[in-house]
């Protein structure tokens, strides 16, 4: 009896909720400038680091200017979660989807489902390995890797042993590594040892750095593919008193910038401009809605931050 009552209440509440939604959207249609406010589903990689918070802020700023409604969700670095978020967006009949894929290749089938439903898909920060994407907005990661390499080449006078702590599961990170290797390989006196996997997290990176420094007593420099990795490597270097090692990180998060400023082994960072990525992603969507031509790849510039420029 009680259960029935509960069920009834829930049903009532639910239908009321639906009506409420219907009223809202009707109201929205009437008050909008002749058209229904465009809704964009966003599935971020995570909401748990500074980079994505900035990116989200950029998205929201541009969405306000364009009068778009954003439905922002976090994929929490979990492919299956992100896939179901995309499916939910399709059920909600959003007008466009912006994705930061949790897995470059694994996300393709979900994008294909969106293609089949004629919902345009945009990617930001991380590229997708399949499906039809209108435009990919991201930092030029390869250029970022090149910048880091140029910094290291100069700092070690084009000579010595150099290592990389990477995260081969993520395409944007692999691009950084590619750009880095491209520049390093032009220097015949620099030896690049095989890349170790730090998983992009601090404790794994610390272990990888321990092995890297241990295995190569004459190691001159380490390129770390993000700041958590760089800070893990820094802990390893500091525990060994290796302040002459040159660590270059990526992202310029506050903690890393503080470490650069205090003159630690972490000498420099490649800084992305996540806010600009968010802004340009919405720009691309807006252009597409207007029927303008959108470039398939929008590159957002990166820059290098060291003790001098961080001040």
């Amino acid at each position, binding site marked *: 009896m009680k259960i029935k009552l509960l069920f009834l209440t829930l049903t009532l509440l639910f239908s009321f909720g639906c009506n409420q939604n219907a009223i809202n959207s009707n109201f929205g249609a009437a008050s909008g400038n002749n058209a229904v406010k465009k809704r964009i589903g966003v599935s971020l990689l995570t909401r748990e680091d500074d980079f994505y918070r900035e990116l989200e802020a950029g998205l929201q700023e541009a969405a306000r200017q364009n009068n778009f409604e954003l439905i922002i969700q976090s994929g929490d670095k979990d492919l299956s979660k992100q896939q179901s978020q995309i499916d939910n967006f399709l059920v909600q009949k959003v007008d466009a989807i912006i994705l930061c894929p949790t897995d470059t290749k694994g996300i393709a089938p979900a994008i294909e489902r969106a293609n089949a439903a004629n919902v345009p898909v945009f990617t930001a920060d991380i590229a997708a390995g399949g499906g039809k994407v209108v435009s990919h907005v991201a930092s030029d990661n390869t250029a970022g890797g090149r910048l880091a390499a140029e910094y290291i080449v100069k700092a070690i006078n084009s000579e010595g042993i150099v290592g990389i702590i990477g995260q081969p599961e993520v395409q944007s990170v692999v691009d950084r590594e590619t750009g880095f290797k491209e520049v390093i390989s032009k220097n015949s006196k620099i030896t690049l040892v095989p890349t170790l996997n730090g998983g992009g997290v601090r404790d794994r990176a610390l272990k990888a750095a321990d*092995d890297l420094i*241990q295995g190569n007593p004459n190691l001159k420099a380490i390129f770390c593919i993000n700041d958590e990795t760089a800070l893990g490597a820094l802990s390893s270097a500091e525990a060994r008193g290796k302040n002459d090692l040159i660590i270059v990180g990526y992202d310029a998060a506050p903690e890393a910038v503080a470490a650069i400023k205090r003159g630690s082994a972490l000498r420099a960072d490649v800084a992305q401009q996540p806010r600009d990525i968010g802004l340009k992603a919405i720009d691309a969507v807006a252009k597409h809605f207007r029927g303008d031509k959108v470039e398939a790849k929008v590159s957002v510039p990166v820059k290098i931050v060291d003790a001098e420029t961080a001040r």
Partner: protein
Amino acid sequence: MNQSIRQKLSGFVIFGAIVAESIVFSVLAPQFASIENLVNVALSIAVIGILAVGMTFIILTGGIDLSIGSVAALAGVVAALVTQHTEIASLGFAAALGIGLASGAFNGVIVAYFRVPSFVVTLAVLTIARGLAFIFSGGRSIGNLPENFGRLGKFVFLGIPFSVWLMILTFAFGWFLLRHTTFGRYVYAVGGNAEAAFLAGVKTKAVVFQVYVLNGFLVGLAAIVLASRLGAGVPNSGLQYELDVIAAVVVGGTSLSSGRGSVVSTLFGAIFIGILNNGLNLIGVDTYVQKIILGVVILLAVLADRFNRPH
């Protein structure tokens, strides 16, 4: 009698395996066979080793604890927060032990007195603790702490880092507890046949509860070592440590079907895996291939356990 011979035999197998892999790596990697690298290996298994002592007790009683990595991350975050606000690292470390003990007691009560399978309870605590770690930290690592927070992680005594000393002490303590106290006898009795133990007058529920509290304490200890080495509270640290720890226990020869095993065999298991990871990194084996090798090793260990079973 027969069983103890078998147990010695399986100890011999894992010891032989350690010798064998050491010989292989010495040949393939010139850096491998050095005092420095041995210390490096010991350092790399310190956190996992401390956790593995607690896990050995739990597995001996027929249980499992999946929450250890997340609880360690939570304890590390809380330690960092307390240190940030009070400027006293020892207060932060005390808080970490408190978190460990509290979560251990929580797991213990539910498993022992509410008779819920440990797998389910600790799986729930795994996600709760991870969620809390992200909420308390606001999703970002808590770094830039007073210098004394990281001092423990950098402290070296007689050429051996503090974390390694702590691991050695933990193993000695666990060995003594299990081999030379009534409590230890009870742990084996509960794991071997809980009903028989109960009929013989062992307070089985109390023993199980105490084992989870002990494990919680060791998780707190491991969290201190980890956070201090990283010099920060990192919410996404400790990912999948439960798997690494269970691997060490199982490879050492402790049976998941409970009642057989020892702290010493777990130490061997941890050393074996530590050397394997280190050696593969030193000779530059692809990180994906490393995962496969580790999986095969675990399988072989379980198969060996199967053949050692006394019937």
